[in-house]
């Protein structure tokens, strides 16, 4: 399968600006299985933390980009972007909500990035959030499974179903075993244990994963991300500020809607293309990446996406996990904040929280034992559905 657009190559993201857009401040709420605050208060809390971090007054913000998947279904409300600007006391700014299912957060970041890169905004605030606890598990499952293709929906296919199919195919194709797969969750929980913003601050071991309830064989509960409440925000500016991190690229690509339309069940074309576009736009590739935030909604996705992004050879990502290469002190730390599995996955917040995590890592302002030593370049990939769409963001610490 080939991409059927963008044959003319990726346009220059800087569009004439001398410096790439920079992230001046970041912030997020502590992700939780249930946060008592209404969704709009979560968005506001994250936004204010990002503005405080940037030492910017809200009045400098001239565009607001809100990422959220399903406030209508979870919280019976819409109009989030206007409610947020209202709470911030802003009028006269550009504001909009961006929906791209579980990649709504990164799409909001992309919207803010493009607003600044295109010269339309000097201070663009991207805020992502979701409050999923308002719905019971059955309702949440139905809301999320409704993003599938109609032919998939009628079969009762859920997102974990695709995870199970991919995991079974991967374990059949390569020498990895079920215990290797469990090591992804073990590693991500170990990282989250040190992250005060993570939903699960509890270390687990391989047997905990293997003993957890079956969800979609071979995947078990501890292979799957939770439902969560939370919000995250980043302020992207045209002029670099002290301690800012540059956005080297933010690109996205769609894949097929029906997962089975891919020729290979282990293929996630959207992730590969978003990565290719981002590397080309940034002028550096996978070999330059020091730390990565991968969309591990299911453990198996960490391997599949690493391989699509060139962070591991095809069929070899499992070896990096087993050898500890993706641990916090390994050659390529993956999901240092705990990933979706253990930091939590409040749908619209996740893509923004990945960027927040990378900024903390690249600024080097995390406590001892929480950060990746000397990281200069980071990659985040946020995925919609089981690869319907992917957004890849590359960040670079200022020299």
């Amino acid at each position, binding site marked *: *399968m080939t991409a*059927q657009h963008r044959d003319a190559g990726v346009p220059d993201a800087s569009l004439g600006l001398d410096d790439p857009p920079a992230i001046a401040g970041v912030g997020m709420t502590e992700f939780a299985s249930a946060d008592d605050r209404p969704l709009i208060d979560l968005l506001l809390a994250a936004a204010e933390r990002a503005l405080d971090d940037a030492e910017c007054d809200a009045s400098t913000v001239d565009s607001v980009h809100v990422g959220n998947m399903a406030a209508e279904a979870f919280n019976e409300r819409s109009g989030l972007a206007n409610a947020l600007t209202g709470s911030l006391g802003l009028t006269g700014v550009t504001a909009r909500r961006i929906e791209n299912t579980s990649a709504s957060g990164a799409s909001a970041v992309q919207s803010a990035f493009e607003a600044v890169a295109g010269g339309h905004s000097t201070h663009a605030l991207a805020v992502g959030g979701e409050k999923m606890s308002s719905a019971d598990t*059955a309702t949440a*499952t*139905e809301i999320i*499974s409704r993003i599938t*293709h109609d*032919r*998939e*929906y*009628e*079969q*009762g*296919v*859920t997102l*974990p*179903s*695709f995870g*199970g*199919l*991919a*995991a*079974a*195919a991967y374990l*059949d194709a390569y020498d990895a075993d079920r215990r290797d797969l469990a090591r992804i969750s073990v590693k991500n929980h170990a990282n989250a244990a040190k992250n005060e913003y993570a939903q699960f601050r509890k270390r687990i071991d391989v047997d905990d994963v293997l003993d957890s*309830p*079956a*969800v*979609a*064989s*071979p*995947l078990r509960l501890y292979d799957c991300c939770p439902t969560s409440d939370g919000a995250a925000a980043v302020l992207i500016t045209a002029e670099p500020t002290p301690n800012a991190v540059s956005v080297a690229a933010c690109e996205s690509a769609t894949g*097929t*809607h*029906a*997962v*089975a*339309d*891919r*020729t290979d*069940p282990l293929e996630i074309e959207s992730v590969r293309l978003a990565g290719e576009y981002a590397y080309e736009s940034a002028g550096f590739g996978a070999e330059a990446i020091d730390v990565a935030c991968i969309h591990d909604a299911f453990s198996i996705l960490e391997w599949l996406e690493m391989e699509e992004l060139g962070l591991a050879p095809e069929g070899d990502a499992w070896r990096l996990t087993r050898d500890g290469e993706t641990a916090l002190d390994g050659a390529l730390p993956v999901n240092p904040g705990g990933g979706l599995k253990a930091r939590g996955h409040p749908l619209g917040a996740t893509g923004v929280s990945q960027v927040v995590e990378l900024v903390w890592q690249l600024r080097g302002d995390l406590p001892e034992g929480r950060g990746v030593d000397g990281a200069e370049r980071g990659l985040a990939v946020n995925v919609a559905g089981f690869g319907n769409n992917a957004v890849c963001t590359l960040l670079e610490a200022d020299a």
Partner: protein
Amino acid sequence: MTQLLECRECGRRTYYEKRRCLECGGSAFDRVDAGRGELRSVTTVHVTPEGVREPNRLGLAAFPGGANVVAQLDEGLSIGDAVRLQGGHDLRVTDDGTLRGARLVAVE
């Protein structure tokens, strides 16, 4: 539905209706019998939405012409087995009635 759409231009087949061929962009399709496929992966799903059988065993099968299908799967089948699509099954009960369609079953 036990048939596939075959691109009149390049012959690529798909189970999932769309305006353009994923391979060549062609827009004319013929309906053809799916024939015999091979199971590429299987999963047993223990947490299913309301109106869906639990557990829900699913298979991903590759059919000739590059068409892959994810569908409910009969018991006793594993990766590498030959399968076909068999129509007329009650797949899912919704507020608007029962969705009927094809399952993957063993080739006798």
